[in-house]
């Protein structure tokens, strides 16, 4: 009996990869894959498949990247120009932007690589100007947008899969994983005090300026009617308005309700009388049902069973 591992090796290569429409690639030359039990499979080297990538030469089983031309109707300002962008699915965690751009460099000069957790427009990292205060991004399987300088790069990349599995980590450009990566990560986590201080100071100055500006603006607008004649009531000034919070709203509503209840006449009309009775009976029924359930629960809970 073979160990699972050995069997795995023996059965290799058996992953037959196909690509869904729109995603391109060429079948990795390989025998007909076999999937036990399912009766699924048959495959020829001709059928289209995705781009196979491996970490290094040592690994046997490749991952498949699915590549596709990026086509989205979007307004200007989108960072991924439709003609020149390649949309890549299923990027393994150890494959960073550098490695990815190196992979696709053979198809044409790469302008930028954008790795994301999920596809979609999403805000570009314009906020991430701060080096320190951004959260570390997750490193699962990601999607990437590779922007080439020329549209030809996209076509070349789509045809790339004929060349067998690509290697992410090569001897000339090793990708750090494991211990060395963690040590690097630890080293990165140590911040430079001076730099951090400068950044925080700059940010706080900006912030203070912003706040001061807002305040000045509010002070200027205070009590001055706008073009339609409305006056904005703020919490400041001689006649402060109510704060617009949920709690304050609820309080007002509650007060209103009480006021209305005081005014209302109870059991004045015949229909009111009827309705109260009906409600009363409905409530009794509901309570009865609830009690029944509770007793059933108590009975189920009881550990003491003398019989």
């Amino acid at each position, binding site marked *: 009996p073979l160990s*699972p*591992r050995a069997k795995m090796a023996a059965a290799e290569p058996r992953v037959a990869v*196909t690509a869904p429409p729109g995603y391109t690639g060429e079948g990795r030359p390989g025998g007909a894959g076999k999937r036990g*039990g399912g009766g699924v499979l048959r495959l020829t080297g001709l059928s289209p498949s995705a781009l196979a990538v491996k*970490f290094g030469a040592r690994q046997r089983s490749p991952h498949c990247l699915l590549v596709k031309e990026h086509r989205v109707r979007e307004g200007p300002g989108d960072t991924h120009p439709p003609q020149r962008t390649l949309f890549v699915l299923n990027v393994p*965690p150890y494959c960073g932007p550098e490695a990815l751009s190196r992979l696709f460099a053979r198809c044409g000069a790469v302008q930028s690589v954008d790795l994301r957790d999920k596809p979609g427009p999403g805000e570009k990292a314009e906020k991430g100007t701060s080096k320190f205060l951004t959260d570390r991004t*997750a490193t699962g399987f990601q999607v990437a947008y590779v922007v080439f300088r020329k549209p030809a790069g996209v076509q070349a990349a789509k045809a790339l899969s004929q060349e067998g599995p690509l290697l992410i980590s090569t001897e000339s450009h090793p990708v750090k994983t494991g211990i060395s990566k963690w040590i690097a990560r630890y080293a990165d986590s140590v911040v430079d005090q001076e730099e951090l201080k400068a950044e925080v100071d700059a940010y706080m100055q900006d912030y203070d300026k912003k706040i001061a500006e807002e305040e000045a603006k509010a002070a200027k607008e205070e009590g001055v009617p706008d073009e339609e004649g409305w006056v904005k009531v703020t919490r400041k000034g001689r006649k402060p308005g109510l704060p617009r919070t949920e709690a304050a709203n609820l309080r007002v509503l509650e007060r209103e309700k009480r006021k209305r209840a005081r005014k209302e006449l109870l059991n004045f009309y015949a229909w009111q009388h009827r309705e109260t009775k009906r409600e009363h009976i409905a409530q009794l029924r509901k309570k009865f049902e609830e009690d029944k359930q509770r007793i059933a629960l108590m009975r189920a809970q009881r550990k003491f069973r003398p019989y």
Partner: protein
Amino acid sequence: SQGLGCFSGFLVSMLVAYLVMKRKIVKVMSGYQVLRNVLQFLATTDLSVTGITLAKDTDTCLPALADFHHAFEVVFVDPSGLVNLCADMTASKYHQVQFEAKHSMEILDDRMVDGFQALLMTSKPMLRTFDHVFHLKHVSKLQSACKKMQLLNELMDRGGNYVAAALPFIVSLLTRGLARRALLVAHSLPQTPEWPIDVEPPKHKDIGSLMFGLLFVPEFAASTLVKGPQADHPEATDFRTFWGEKSELRRFQDGSICEAVVWEASTICQKRLIPEQIVKHLLKLHADIPESCICYTGALLESVIKNGKKALGTGEEDMVNVVCSYDDLSRKLWNLEGLPLTVTAVQGIHPALRYTDVFPPIPMKPIYSFHKQIKSRHLLLPSEEKPCPAYITPLKIICHMEGSGQWPQDKEAIKHIKAAFHLQLAELLQQQHQFICRPAVTHTDVYKDGYVFRLQVAYHREPLILKEVVTPEGMLKYQDTEESQRLELETSHQPYLTSSLHGLHQQHPVFGSTCRLAKRWISAQLLSDSISEECVDLLVASLFLHPAPFTPPSSPQVGFLRFLNLLATFDWRNNPLIINLNAGLTDADCTEIKNKFVAARSRLPVMFIATPKDRWNSVWTQERPSAQILQRLLVLASESVRALEEQLMNPLSSQDVKIVFRPPLDHYDVLIHLNSNQIPRHLESVDSPVKSFSRGVVKNSAGVRILFPVVDYDPAQCYLQDLREMCYRSWSDQVALMPERLNGDEGSMAFRQRMLKFQDRSNGKGGLFWELEAFNDLALFFYDKHGGDVIAVLWKPSSFQPQPFKVSNMKGRTVTTLNNELVCVPNIEAILEDFEVLGEGLVKSVEARTEKWTI
């Protein structure tokens, strides 16, 4: 209630008859009143001093009660006036009954506990009742004990039954020896086995082993000194003969010269074992019972919380040192000059600061040559060639700053201001107290006395600001967000818990050790990441705060056994576990919590723990454990408690208690073996490793001007994090689940109901996790963070189902056609190799044990 000299049902009925005769019980009383009266009578009357009789007429020719007292230990005379019903009972047994009666009365009076359940429905095996238990392996040794104690008369009275003859004397000997330490010395009843009519009756030595239980007074149980009378008093000789050569003359601080016995013990863990020394010494001296015959189980489990083989103590002293250093630091923080705002509170939240860290930090100083040095920034980095440096835990401390109008009201700005505070704290501490500090955005690390403290500044309004949401109409709303909840947990719940449990540890000195044992067990079962540490702390705290029907544990072993039992038997589905920390809940509150719990059961976490500060949310069990993990935990706990008690009850076995700390690995799909030189906490593993590596530190706290050591760097944890991120599957599933979790609509009810069914299905060891739908991951990873060298992986069964091709489904999957439809299935072969790639240098081998992925 069985065996020689038991307090049997017959005796109880006679006692009730006596009470009826005395008109203490009358016909109209209910069963509960009768029970109370009997308990009351038992609790208040000592039959070993004032006997009672059922005989009505006082006949002068009958023996008087005094005569009975002369002949027997416990006196309860039958109606004829001639027979003592309690003839075989020892005084100790009666005292035990009396103690229980007293205790039961207290429980009945306590309105917080369900007296019926606790008193009449819970069994109290000796192992779980008594703090220390020891066995007398061979009762035949009692024969020589009889000889030594000159008990020939008694021997004849009992027809040569040397066990029955010697037992009362041995117990009274122990009671005297443990006078101030033990509340109760109890013994098991000798059981006479049945035998077929045609064979020889069994000998006295065939009754198996005798078991003794000790219940301690926590204040005195561990004192090293027994002070006797003054040397010139007549009692001094008596004292000397009792203790033998151990007794010596000592001069005390008040000038008196007394006889005294001093026991050797340097650490707290050894001190807990002084009763063992006493028992062994006394039995050898007075009863001729050699030490080899006594099998003492008091601290067998403690070896698993000792760090390394050579460690003497169980680290309780280290914990005290940490707390001292922390106190000093907090004082210095209070008095720090030059901060724009004053510090209003300094609160520790690390488990070591509440005495419940499994392995408390030890002061350490790094060896430079072992690390890569970066002199310009005064710090050390782990080096790739050397084994991984020792793990230094940062001790987290929350430092609350005074509120002021100067605080910005915007979350980004608050973060920046906090970063500025961290920088300034570091600078000031360095200037004023010469500590070495390393500031970062979210904290400042301070190296002090060989420990690393992680200071975190908190602003009390920040959670509120994080909750603010402005609706489209411009209304301000407060909504819990993940970030605000986490912050609230850190800055308000954790400090409160830490300080309450710190107080609890002062009341019950073994609380910490019990907690550590419990946590060690959970992490040894690879489940430490699936249940929060605070949750375990609270579970253990409940044993001390609501011990009924037991007394609060006074030894870690009994505490641990009860913890396992609690886990295994508590009905999580139908009951909330209410823990009354600092007595902050009244019984009205408890009823309210229970009622609300029942009403909202389907929306609450599977494990619900309520404390005074957290009545409706059960913050520590919100996320973890899931129903599947809890189920697994319950099964493991009941198996462990069974195995452990079997081991401890059998004095003739090897008593290898570590078996419950070795996890079963055969259920897992993949095992990832790790290189032990890259596991910084390898020494902490249950079975001490054969080979140990230098970790580049010396135990020393003297360092002042040094480079900052490597803190919080554990490759195994980094690896786990990477693995989990890799196998964290699709975000779209996650989004789909969110509404279910937020509002309690029908769908979520059904979802919860399904999760709650777990307890009905406790069919034991068969399948491991039945319904893993609740997880979004491709696989689950399990690891013992205390030096485990294997990561166990469990594939989620449903993830092998081929799924229709969607952009969101393509994570680590490959596309194939099934019946002419495009589907994607996980690319397991590649993922297995990724396991190796991701953990390069750390992973020794990846062992796939099942081939579930082939469909």
